[in-house]
C-alpha cells in the first residue's frame, strides 16, 4: 500500500491507504474489482449490446469461471481461460497495477509479466463453475451509484479523503 513503511503512518489521520484507480477505457470491461477474495468483473459482449459476460478468478485457488449474466456458460472456456478473463485481467492490471492484482490473487508474477494473458499463464488455473448472480448484482449496485442524486449537504468526513495525484 501507499506509504505503509513510513513510521508516522499509524498516527496520521489523512493517509492514502488505497491508491486511486488509474484511469482506463471502460467500453470493453465496464467493471473490475478485487473483492470477496476474487478478481471479478463484467465484460461487454462484442456482438450483442444487451449481453454481458461475468468473469471471475479466485484468489489462492485460482479457480476461474465465465458465463453470461443469465448463467449460460461462456463458449470460450475450453480448458483454458477465455478472452473475457484475459480482458478482465488486462483491465485489472491497468486499474490497480500489476503488483496489487498479483498480491491479491497470491501469484508470484515474476519478471516479464505485463498483460493479463501473461499473468493468467503464470497460474495453475482450473475451471470451476460459480454463480454469476453475486458478481452481476455487485455490478448493478456499482452502476446504481450513478443514479444517486448530487447533494449540497457538506460532508465533513470527506476531509479524511483528499483528492490526490495531480499531474498523473
Amino acid at each position, binding site marked *: *500500500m501507499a506509504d*505503509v*513503511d513510513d513510521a508516522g*503512518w*499509524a*498516527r*496520521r*489521520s*489523512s*493517509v*492514502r*491507504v*488505497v491508491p*486511486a*484507480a*488509474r*484511469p*482506463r*477505457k*471502460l*467500453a470493453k470491461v*465496464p467493471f473490475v474489482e*478485487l*473483492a*470477496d*477474495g476474487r478478481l471479478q468483473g463484467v465484460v*461487454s459482449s462484442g456482438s450483442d*449490446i*444487451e449481453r*454481458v459476460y461475468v468473469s471471475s478468478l479466485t484468489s489462492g485457488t485460482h479457480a476461474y469461471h465465465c458465463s453470461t449474466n443469465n448463467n449460460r456458460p461462456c463458449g470460450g472456456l475450453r480448458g483454458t481461460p477465455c478472452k473475457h478473463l484475459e480482458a478482465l485481467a488486462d483491465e485489472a492490471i491497468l*486499474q490497480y497495477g500489476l503488483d496489487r492484482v498479483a498480491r491479491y490473487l497470491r501469484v508470484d508474477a515474476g519478471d516479464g509479466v505485463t498483460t493479463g494473458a501473461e499473468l493468467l499463464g503464470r497460474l495453475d488455473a482450473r475451471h470451476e463453475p460459480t454463480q454469476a448472480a453475486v458478481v452481476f448484482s455487485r*455490478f*448493478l*449496485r*456499482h*452502476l*446504481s*451509484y*450513478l*443514479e*444517486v442524486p*448530487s*447533494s*449540497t*449537504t*457538506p*460532508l*465533513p*468526513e*470527506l*476531509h*479524511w*479523503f*483528499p*483528492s*490526490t*495525484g*495531480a*499531474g*498523473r
Partner: protein
Amino acid sequence: MLGTQLTALTDGHPAGLTDALDLVAGVDAALAHGLARVGEADAAALASLAAALGTTPLADLVAEAVDKICAGSVTPEHLAALAGARSALLGAAHDALLGQLDAALGRGRVPWSPAPPAAPSPVLAGARAWLHEVAVTGWRGVDHELVAAAGTPVEAALAAPESRRLAVLLDGLAAELRACVPVAAMPQVPARRWADLWARGVLLAQDAGAVDPVTEVDRVDGRLLPLGVDVHEHDTAMQIQVHAILEPAAGGPPRLVRTAVGAAKVDTIVGPALWRLLQAYPTLLAALAQRRGVTVADLPVRGADLRWQDDRAQLDGPVDPFAAARVLLPGAQAAATAPLDRHPAAIAEPVLLEGYAVGDHDGDLVLELDGRPLAVAVDRLPSCGPLTPELVAASSACLGLLRWDDGRWRLQPLAVRATVKRKAVDVHTGDWACGITDAKVAKAEAKAGDAVAVLRERAGRLLRR
C-alpha cells in the same frame, strides 16, 4: 501570512496536546486489537482515558464503559461512550490548534449557535451493528465477510438523504478495509485514521446525534468572492468545497465562508471527469473556471457553511482570488466549527503566502517565510486540476489551506502564481471545472473516452430490467 505569523503558529504545541494524542493512540491500539478480549496494555490505556475524562460531564459514562469493556461485556452504549471520549479529546485538540492559528493570524471567529436536533433515522441501527462488530473484532481481524457485511447498512444509509454523511463515511472505510484484507498481514495498520472514521461513524449513527442539515439558522445575501476549491474523493463519493469571502449585502465585515457540492461516483471515474458529476451547479463551476464573483440571494447558512443553491446565484464580474485574499482575508470573520465536526483533520483555513523561498527538506517541498519552513501538502493536490507540485515549486505566491496532521502544520495549495517559461501564470485547482483548458491533457482524456457516459449507457441498459 507573514513570517512572524508562521513563527507564532509553529512555535511549540498547545499545552496538553501531546498528552491528549497519547491517550487517543491508546484507544487506537485497542481498536486495532479488538475489544473481544482486552489485553493488559490496552486495558491500562483505556483506564488512563477514563481517568483523563474524570472531571468532565462524560466521566461516569466513560468510567463504566471502560470497566465493562475490559471485563469483556461490550454493549452499544459502551462503544458510544468510548467513541464519545475519544472524540472529546480530539475536539479539544482541534479547539486548541485552531485557537493557536487564530491567535497567530489575528483571525476573528464567531461562536457556534446551537441547531435544533433532527428526528433519528431508521437506517442507523444497521450501521451501529456493523461498527460494533468491527470494534469487537479489531482491525487486525477484519476479513472478507466482515467487509461484505457493510454493504447492507451502506446501501440503506445512502438511500436516505439525511444519513448521507454516514453512508459516505462507511463506504469509504469499508473500501479501504476491503483493499487491505487480510489486515493481519499488513506490517502496520493506519490506526489513527481508521479509529477516527470508526468513532465519527459511531457518533453519526446515534439516534441523538442526528443534526438536521436542512433547517438552517440563518440566510444571507451578498457577493461571494471564491478564493479556491478543495477537492475530496474516495471510490464512491466526491465533493468540492469552495472557500470564499462573502461580502454581506446588509453590510458588516466580510465573512470567511465555504460551500460544498458533491456527488456519488464509482472508482473508475477519476481526474477531470469528476467535474462532469457536478453539472447541476453550472453557476458555481463557471465562477471557478472563469474566476468570477457570484451574487447570492437568500442562501441558507450555518456557521461558515453556505448551503449552495445554484438558482439563487448569479455570476458577477471577474475576481482575482489573490487580490481578494490580500485585501479582505486579514479582516474576514471566520466561524466556529460545528461541535460534532471538531477534529484536527477538519481544520482547513485559507491563507495567502507571498515573498517566500521554495526549499526542500529531506525530499519534502517547503515554503520558507523569514527562514521558517512550512511543508507543502503535495499529496492533497487533486488529479482533476492543473495545479502540480512542479508549479508550486516554481511559485511566488500561494493561496492555500492550513492543515494539521500528526504534530505539524502543512499548507495545501489551492492556487499559485508561478513563472513558467519566463511568463507569470495563475493556476488554480478549479481551472478545469468547465472543461480541461490544457490541450495536451484534453487530448489524452478524449482518447481515454468518457467514463461517465459509458457507465450511464450500461446503467440505462442493464439496471431497470
